[in-house]
C-alpha cells in the first residue's frame, strides 16, 4: 500500500519535471522564432521608398535630416524637410508645429505620422533622437573639419 503511494508520488514528480522542461523548451523555441521575425514599429526611409510602409496608418519613421532640405512656410509653423538614410533613399516629411531644440540638419529624427499616397510623410509629432555619443563642441568641430569621409562614417555610426 505504502509502496504504491510512493510510486504515484514519484510519478507525479517526474510528470512535473517533464512538464516544466517541455514548457521551457517551448518558451525557448518561440523566443528563437520571434527573434528571427522583425517586429516593425519603425520604418526607415529605404523601407518607405520601397513601399513597405502602410499608407494612411499612424507609423513611426525616421532618418537623418538632409543638409539644406529644411523649408519653412512663410506664414505659420509649417515646415517640410527631407530625411534620408545617408544612402539613396529619401522621404519628404511635412510637419506643422514647434520643432524640438535638438532638431537640426544632419541630425537624426523620429516622426510619428502617416504616409500619404504621394509618398509624403505627414507628421503629427517630430522628436529628435539623441545619440549616445557625447562630446564637447570643440571635438565635434574638429571631427567635422577633419575629413569629409570620416565625418560621414561617424554620422552613419551615429544613426545606426
Amino acid at each position, binding site marked *: 500500500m505504502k509502496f504504491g503511494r510512493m510510486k504515484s508520488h514519484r510519478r507525479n514528480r517526474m510528470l512535473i519535471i517533464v512538464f516544466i522542461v517541455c514548457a521551457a523548451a517551448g518558451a525557448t523555441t518561440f523566443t528563437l522564432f520571434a527573434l528571427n521575425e522583425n*517586429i516593425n*514599429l*519603425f520604418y526607415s526611409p529605404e523601407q518607405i521608398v520601397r513601399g513597405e510602409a502602410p499608407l494612411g496608418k499612424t507609423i*513611426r519613421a525616421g532618418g537623418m535630416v538632409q543638409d539644406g532640405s529644411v523649408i519653412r512656410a512663410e506664414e505659420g509653423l509649417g515646415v517640410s524637410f527631407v530625411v534620408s538614410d545617408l544612402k539613396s533613399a529619401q522621404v519628404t516629411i511635412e510637419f506643422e508645429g514647434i*520643432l*524640438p*531644440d*535638438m*532638431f537640426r540638419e544632419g*541630425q537624426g529624427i*523620429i516622426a510619428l505620422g502617416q504616409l500619404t499616397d504621394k509618398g509624403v510623410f505627414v507628421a503629427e509629432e*517630430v*522628436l*529628435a*533622437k*539623441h*545619440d*549616445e*555619443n*557625447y*562630446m*564637447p*563642441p*570643440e*571635438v*565635434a*568641430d574638429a571631427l567635422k573639419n577633419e575629413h569629409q569621409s570620416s565625418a560621414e562614417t561617424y554620422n552613419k555610426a551615429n544613426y545606426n
Partner: protein
Amino acid sequence: MFKWFHRLGSPKIFFEMSGRWQVPLLWLSVVMLTGGAAWALLFVPPDYQQGNSVRIMYIHVPAAILAQSGYVMMSGAAAVFLIWRIKLADVAVKCIAPLGASITFIALLTGAIWGKPTWGTWWVWDARLTSTLVLFFLYIGVIALRSAMERHAGAGRACAILALVGVVNLPVIKFSVEWWYTLHQPASFSLTEKPTMPVEMWLPLLVMVVAYYLFFFAIWIMRIRNEILLTEKNTDWVKQWLATR
C-alpha cells in the same frame, strides 16, 4: 564553507561589523557625491549637441543603473532568505525596497527633465522608460505586500517570492531596447565596451556611479541596523550596546 556566511547572518555580528564600516562609508560617499556633482556641473565641457543639459546625465544615469541593480540585489537577498532562511536577508529585503523605489523615482524624474530639452517632450512611452516605470511599480508592489502583511509570519517569504517573480521582469528591461526600436538611446555606459564619450566626460560619470552605490549601501546598512535594534530590542547585547551609548 558557508561558515562566514552564517556568521554574518547573525544580527549581532552583522551589527558589530557594520558599525565599524558605516561612518567611513557614509563620509566617503558624501564626499564623492559632492565632488562628482561639482565636477559634473562646473568643469565638464558641454555637449556639442545638447549643450549644458547633458549635465543631467550625471544624476540620471547612476540613478537608472542603481534602480535596476537595486532590484537585483533585493531579489538576491530574497533568494538567500528563501534558501537558507537567514533572517537578516529578510531584513535586508525589507530595508532595500523603499530605497530602490526612491532611486527609481529619481531616475524617472531626472529622465523626464532631461527628455524635455533633448527629445522635446517630458515623457515618451518607449520600452526603456516604460520598463523603468514598471520597475517602480514592482518596488511599490513589494512595499505594499509587506505593509499589508505586517502581522503575518509569512510576510518575509511572500515578499521574497514576489521579488523573485519581479526579477523575471529585468531581462525584459534589458532587452526592451532591442525589441522595440525607439527613441531612447542605447545604454550610455557599460563596463565592457570602450566608452563613446571622451575621458573628461565619462570619468566624472564613473565617480558619480560609484558615489551613488556607496551612498546606497551606506543608507541600506543604516536601515538594516535600525531594524535589527528594533527586532532585537529585548536581547542582552542590544541592552548592553545601548548602555554604552
